[in-house]
């Protein structure tokens, strides 16, 4: 039928051959790109930028998943089938993330996708995962305020990173005055909103909080570092809570070091600076500045030492670092494998229902659990930067902290919970007992 109609229309124009060829080409293309999936493997999508501005962080995560798949296949794969990675490059381009997610799910028929780093990339692929009903494991600390049926958040929510860090500074360092410095985008804005509300609830006055935002990739920090110095000279112990985005950290820390701001005078606690970021800086002037994460490479547990050894062997680089989002992928991957083996199927609906309650060991000696809100329980560590680019853990939470999808500090979300087990709802209002909006 289609060829006929093509023919009819083509006939009415002079250059019918070319036209038919074009139409044919398009349809042919449709069939080529819609190639069938092989049945003897389970496909796993890897959606991390390998080029563009985010490649700096995301490339490692792609390698992590390839490494995990390799290890799993050595153990015989999953359900008797080998895992096969499908790697695409969304090139740090947000619309391309959506396009590639669609391609992975429809064309490559992957069973699960591990991917994204920035919030905007996650937001961009969200509608695709909802529409095509697939699973995304998102491994990076983020601003929270989300609980979607198709997404599993293995990174930290603000209550698993920001709030414990502030608590530590308040109790241990007796900090009374706060600089909240961040890159101007959603994660720092939300985190700072949450922290501001939290600090005020602890009796910190408005004039003791300074909030500062800078553009992406900001490289000239002279003025801001001087401002921090000035703000810190008001006679109260001052600390900087930094949500500065990856790339801008190197010049920021270089300026801090050069202007002589020592951690013992004004400590900086960062939420986006890990081993990978420090690899680009001489850390000796930064001794004692802090970072809050759920994992540090320097934590000595048998599981972590084994992981680091195997990872360095896999990448053939004895100096290759590990970091927090990598551990999140390790936990997420193992949880997915367990869930698939539990329901003996890779069908997304079954796996999504099976995942809450699944437990997997983390690399720091505990056991993380997937919660009904699709976040996981994690320990929180505060580490001090050492001279060798690693962190020395100076404080940790006594037990694992469950991730809150919705912050209790914000007016809009304090009554909300995510519960995909009982309520089948990501944004359930416990006051009104209603699932808000369309939910799923």
């Amino acid at each position, binding site marked *: 039928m289609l060829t006929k109609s093509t023919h009819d229309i083509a006939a009415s124009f002079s250059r019918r051959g070319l036209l038919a060829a074009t139409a044919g080409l398009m349809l042919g293309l449709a069939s080529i790109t819609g190639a069938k999936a092989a049945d003897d493997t389970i496909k796993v999508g890897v959606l991390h930028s390998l080029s563009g501005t985010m490649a700096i962080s995301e490339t490692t995560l792609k390698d992590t998943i390839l490494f995990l798949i390799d290890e799993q296949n050595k153990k015989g794969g999953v359900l008797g089938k080998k895992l096969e990675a499908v790697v695409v490059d969304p090139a740090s381009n947000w619309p391309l993330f959506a396009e590639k997610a669609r391609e992975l799910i429809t064309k490559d028929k992957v069973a699960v996708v591990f991917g994204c780093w920035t919030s905007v990339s996650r937001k961009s692929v969200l509608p695709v995962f909802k529409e095509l009903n697939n699973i995304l494991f998102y491994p990076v600390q983020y601003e929270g305020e989300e609980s979607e049926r198709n997404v599993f958040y293995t990174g930290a929510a603000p209550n698993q990173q920001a709030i414990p860090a502030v608590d530590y500074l308040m109790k241990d360092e007796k900090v009374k005055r706060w600089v909240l410095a961040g890159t101007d985008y959603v994660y720092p804005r939300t985190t700072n909103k949450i922290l501001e509300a939290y600090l005020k609830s602890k009796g910190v006055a408005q004039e003791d909080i300074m909030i500062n935002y800078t553009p992406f990739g900001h490289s000239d920090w002279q003025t801001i570092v001087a401002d921090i*110095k000035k703000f810190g000279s008001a006679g109260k112990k001052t600390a900087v809570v930094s949500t500065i985005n990856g790339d801008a950290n190197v010049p920021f820390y270089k300026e801090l070091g050069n*202007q002589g701001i020592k951690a013992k005078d004004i400590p900086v606690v960062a939420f986006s600076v890990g081993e990978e970021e420090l690899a680009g800086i001489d850390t000796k002037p930064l001794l004692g500045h802090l970072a809050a994460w759920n994992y540090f490479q320097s934590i000595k547990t048998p599981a972590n030492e084994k992981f680091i050894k195997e990872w360095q062997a896999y990448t053939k680089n004895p100096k290759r670092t590990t970091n927090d989002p990598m551990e999140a992928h390790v936990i997420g991957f193992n949880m997915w494998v367990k869930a698939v083996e539990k329901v003996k199927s890779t069908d997304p609906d079954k796996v999504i229902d099976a995942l809450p309650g699944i437990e997997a060991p983390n690399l720091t000696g505990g056991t993380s659990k997937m919660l009904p809100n699709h976040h996981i329980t994690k320990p929180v560590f505060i580490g001090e930067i050492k001279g060798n680019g690693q962190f020395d853990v100076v404080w940790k939470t006594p037990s694992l902290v469950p991730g809150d999808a919705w912050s209790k500090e914000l007016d809009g979300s304090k009554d909300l919970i995510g519960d995909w087990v009982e309520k089948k709802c990501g944004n359930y209002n416990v006051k009104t007992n209603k699932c808000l909006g369309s939910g799923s």
Partner: protein
Amino acid sequence: MLANLPARLCALALSLFLIAFALPAFAGPFEDAVAKFANDDFSDTDEAIGVVASSGNKLAFPIISALQDGRLMADPDSKKVYVVGADGKSIDAATGEPVASVPDSASAVRLNNRLRRSVDAALGSLTLQSPDLAVRLQAAQSVFKSHEETALEAVDGALAKETNKSVKVALGEARAAILLFKSDATEVEKLEAVATLKARGDQEALALLTGMGDQPASVTKAAASAIGSIQSSLAVWSTVQNAWYGLSLGSVLLLAAIGLAITFGVMGVINMAHGEMVMLGAYTTFVVQEVIRTRYPALFDYSLLIAVPLAFLVSGAIGVLIERSIIRFLYGRPLETLLATWGLSLVLQQAVRTMFGPTNREVGNPSWMSGAFELGQITITYNRLWILCFTLAVFAILLAMLRYTALGLEMRAVTQNRRMAASMGIATSRVDALTFGLGSGIAGIAGVALSQIDNVSPNLGQSYIIDSFMVVVFGGVGNLWGTLVGAFTLGIANKFLEPVAGAVLGKIAILVLIILFIQKRPRGLFALKGRAVEA
């Protein structure tokens, strides 16, 4: 008096030694405190520091300074604590007896920021009478910062013996800081203290004055006037500081743009790969430093000096290669060079990403590029200062080269009138290649400097390309002086806007100002005049 210091020191050390042996090892408060270092608990360590520092025991100084340098080893099993000397010899921290070796199970006692402050305070009062002038000054400053009452006696003692003027001032300030916070100090003492701090007049003095808490009315009043005067003097300084920051930012912009001013301004090639030439220069620095680190660590301080000519050669050679293989086919079609060089920039970025990995590479600051000095009430960092000097030097050399060398003459001739130059016997295509190589080489040099303040990653060039174009266009295409003035104008304007409008809005404002400025002067600050311009 200074001359017999070594002798005195020897005597001191000897007596120390004797005391250590003379005292029998019984478990007193000092020994208990030392044992606490082995608990690996921050509060215990803090307590131990306090007890050890105030014990008057001669081992206090070696223990605390070892703690600061990570040379204090503790064995968690035997609860023994050892001091590893800078010379590698170890002693038992509790008794001072030498030990043959520290057991393997011992590890360095850990510190956190709170403890580092305690250590500084403790060391401050212990080293106030150190023979080394710099150590004494540092000690006085540490005491000033910690201003703990317990140090007052030590400060008074040191003040009585001190002969050096600047240390004396520092000790006086430390004393004032202590008295200000001492609850039982007299009103007169406190008023004097306020006056001393007012004379110091910097942010730290301001911090003490604003944070001093409840005081007698007269002191509060004096403090308020001191705060007012310090603040108004700091406000003046902050203008100077903004100007300096502006100059510094301007120098970075100029450095990044100067190569573009040649390839784009003089040759008319819209070189979108210019940023990548900068990046290549930065990576050259990285490679040079890697080689130096592994082979010739002693040369590290010279790494940048070695990297500058190499970066010039690497980027310059690649520039010549690009000109010969791509650009020369595109002369007279400037907008097409934009497309080809954009493609080229993608290729170069990805090539570097493939070769060096996508993550940041560490380029260290040589010692002469690290740190800062105070000029009045502003902090000037050495790296920024050197970059400013370096930029001006590059600019001067470039101008001189264009003005006084044969190649410079040929370059100017070819850009002014290509056909006439050719008929005069100038090999125009050779000059083209060399000009492009020169512009690229200078971009490479810029990379060496930028590696000191920014990320060395494949994206390095991208962050400078737009700013560079703005600078060149704002200053007027084809005029190096325009680029100079343009860069410094934009840098200073940006730094004066930033405190008012914030970093993001400040940058937006600058862009809008450029757009409006171009309406007023459609060909930039220093426009070329003449017929050729309109063609």
